[in-house]
């Protein structure tokens, strides 16, 4: 379980959120929603260990990840991220982008397996900058499928995609949730909010 206790985040004079608390059950599909600039992505990044809160605690399976840097690294090994901007290395091939995951953190699947799942096998040796936005997001999804993870953090995963590609992303996220993974997604798309078990309005 993920427990968020009295979390506060301040950027300069700007208080993003103050004393926020909630719980996320293991295996659930949680959607963070709210207006632009309310701190949805910041909250996601803090739970995922990519950003530090100003104060408060985030307890993942009994471990306070705001206290222990080593635990954050451990947590990252159990988490997967899907970013709106795909977070791919532009000047490397699709295959190389998948292979940046350390061997110990990979699933039993091969690069070809996961690329096949997202229908990108034919682009295996293409440079990332030559791909379209939808194709890049599918590579990011393949990377997510290639990595061992228990919690998936998706930040506006369909924000820059057409309907067809958005559906592929959502279908895969749902499948991962069905397989027992916790999915935390940030979106401002009203239609997408409905797919979550829980909606947390920030």
């Amino acid at each position: 379980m993920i427990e968020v206790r009295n979390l506060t985040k301040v950027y300069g004079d700007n208080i993003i959120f103050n004393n926020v608390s909630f719980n996320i059950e293991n295996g659930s599909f949680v959607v963070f929603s709210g207006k632009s600039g309310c701190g949805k992505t910041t909250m996601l990044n803090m739970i995922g260990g990519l950003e530090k809160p100003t104060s408060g605690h985030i307890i993942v399976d009994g471990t306070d990840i705001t206290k222990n840097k080593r635990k954050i690294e451990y947590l990252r090994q159990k988490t997967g991220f899907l970013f709106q901007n795909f977070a791919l290395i532009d000047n490397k091939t699709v295959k190389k982008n998948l292979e940046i995951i350390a061997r110990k953190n990979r699933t039993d699947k091969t690069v070809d397996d996961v690329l096949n799942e997202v229908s990108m096998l034919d682009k295996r040796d293409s440079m990332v900058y030559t791909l379209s936005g939808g194709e890049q997001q599918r590579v990011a999804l393949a990377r997510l499928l290639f990595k061992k993870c228990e919690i998936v953090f998706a930040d506006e995963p369909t924000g820059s995609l057409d309907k067809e590609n958005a559906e592929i992303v959502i279908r895969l996220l749902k499948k991962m949730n069905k397989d027992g993974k916790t999915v935390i997604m940030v979106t401002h798309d009203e239609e997408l909010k409905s797919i979550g078990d829980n909606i947390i309005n920030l």
Partner: protein
Amino acid sequence: MIKGIKYSAAAILFLIFLVFCGETAYTSFIDKAFDEFNSIYFEKVYENDEIIEDFAALTKKHDCYGYLTIYDYSDGYSEIYCCSEGDTERIKKKLGADNCSFNTILNGSYKLVFADMSDIEKYTENDCIIQQILIDGDVNDIYSLYKELDSKYEVSWEGTTKNSDKCIYVGAICILLILLLDIYDIINKKRNVCISVSVGNSLCGIIFKEAVRDIIIYTATGALLIWVLSGYTAVVLIKDKICIYLAVLFAANTALYLSYYFTNISSSIKNENDSDTIMPINYTLKVISCCTLMILIIFSGKIKTLKSQYECAEKFNKYFSGYSRVELSESPLWVRKIDSYITDTPDRGSNNVTKLIDQEFEEQLRFFQLTDEQSDIFLMNGYNFETGSRGRKIIIASDCADKYISSCTDIDLSDKDITILIPASYNLGDLHAAKKWVKYINKENNKNLTVDEKHYSSARFISFEYISGDSLIKDDYIISSVDSPIIIYFPKAAEYGFFYYQSIQTNMSKNDSNQLIKNEGLASLFTDISTVETLSNGYMRKQYSEITTYLILLISCAFYYLTSSLSLVFLDIKLNKKERAISYSVGNSIFSRYADIILKLTGSAILSGAISLYILYNIHQFRAGMIAVIMAEVILTDLLMLSFIAYMNEKRNTIKILKGGAL
């Protein structure tokens, strides 16, 4: 790409560091010896065996340790450090050196040999002189040893002027430039590292991998360069120094990588690169390399001069390879005698001093006359008879220099007392000074010498110059080449006491010269004898090495400039691709899309030109026209590079950046 640029630039900086520090390594080594030991100097030439025997006995008696320095010129330039019994390893450790031979670009080859006292005979067989003893131990013991030595020999404590170690500045600049490239590389890779961390890779592991790769590549590059340069510079003497500099570089490099720990991962993933930090670094590197390149190009005309100087020395060597240059100076004993008269008897001192100077002058003339009787002799010396005459292109030549002069000028020298050879292009002041000097010789010697004037077109000659003032080599004669000088040739200079010159060239051997001084009891004189071959070879090596060093620097600098410009253009296009795509989408022309980088490239070239002009102005080499031409060439190269890369980039459909994954 960035890694490639970084490692190439680091290799060039290593090269510059090793060449510079290798050249100064020998001087630093001598400084260290004087720091670590007390030096006792023999003021006269004594029998080697006697000194060696006394040194061995006295070090034992006074519980000191140290070494005798034997300079052996019989086979190149060897220094033999003959160590007190059983102390060889201790001395080696203290000096941080071992038996080695090395070359220096400017001063030729050296050989350092550490030998035990028991092996000394091997090294004293050749024509060698013991000049000094270096001692360490308890201060009182050293003093007792000195006193005992002083009672038997003419000795004195020797102090040196320590040379400032400029290696530290060169090393620091090289390390800083490498670290600047490291920062650039680190910033450039920040996003990729953060992506890697976000997929669960350990940041510690990434840092370790990056740091170790840098260490391996820097060490391998350094080792390779040391191996290559060991034949050309004294890198063998700066092994410890190189290790320290590399350790500093590795530590600073790793510390820079640790900066990844302070990176905000999520914001780094969002932002492609930190352009605000990268671009100023890139422009700084470009301006530095461009300035250096401009200055080096300004000096490119020097290559032709260096080449003709080399050929001139080669020709001189052919004519006089069996000759030696004998330079006379006051013996230390004589200096001390004069000093003691001045300080002890100030009222009557001047009279005695005059007597000593007269005696010294007589002994000098006697030495020259005896040498002239026993061997061939010649002058080919620079004119230094007027105050401030360093600028005069006049050579005083004599005796057997005639064939050399004839072959260079294609003129047969006349049988008159004096022949003045005048080049097609000459300075009126020089000619006036030459004629004035002949008049002076006539007057001084009460003669009416017959003079013939001959004209030649142009030729370069080797002469022995007297360097004084703020020159690097103080109060010493050195070989140099003069382009088309006025030559005053005297067939028989001995009759005029060699015009008070203190140096002559002769084919008498070094041993015979020293023996002559001993046999004739010329106590006021001290000789410094070098073969013409050694001097002209050294001169040729110096010119050759200057040509090589210049070319290496020019190529390195041009490469550094091209890579920094190329990376700058690449990065600018990468960092501003979104802005340019937007600009394209709203219908702006290609020129307006790239106007900012065009202005920056032009501005950086103009800035480089301005800095170069300022530097050149300060070293009195102001050449605005040439800098303007180079600046235009630099701008043209930059713009051509930009046009090509921008064209290739535009072909990739830059508007795609606005689709989907726009940040």
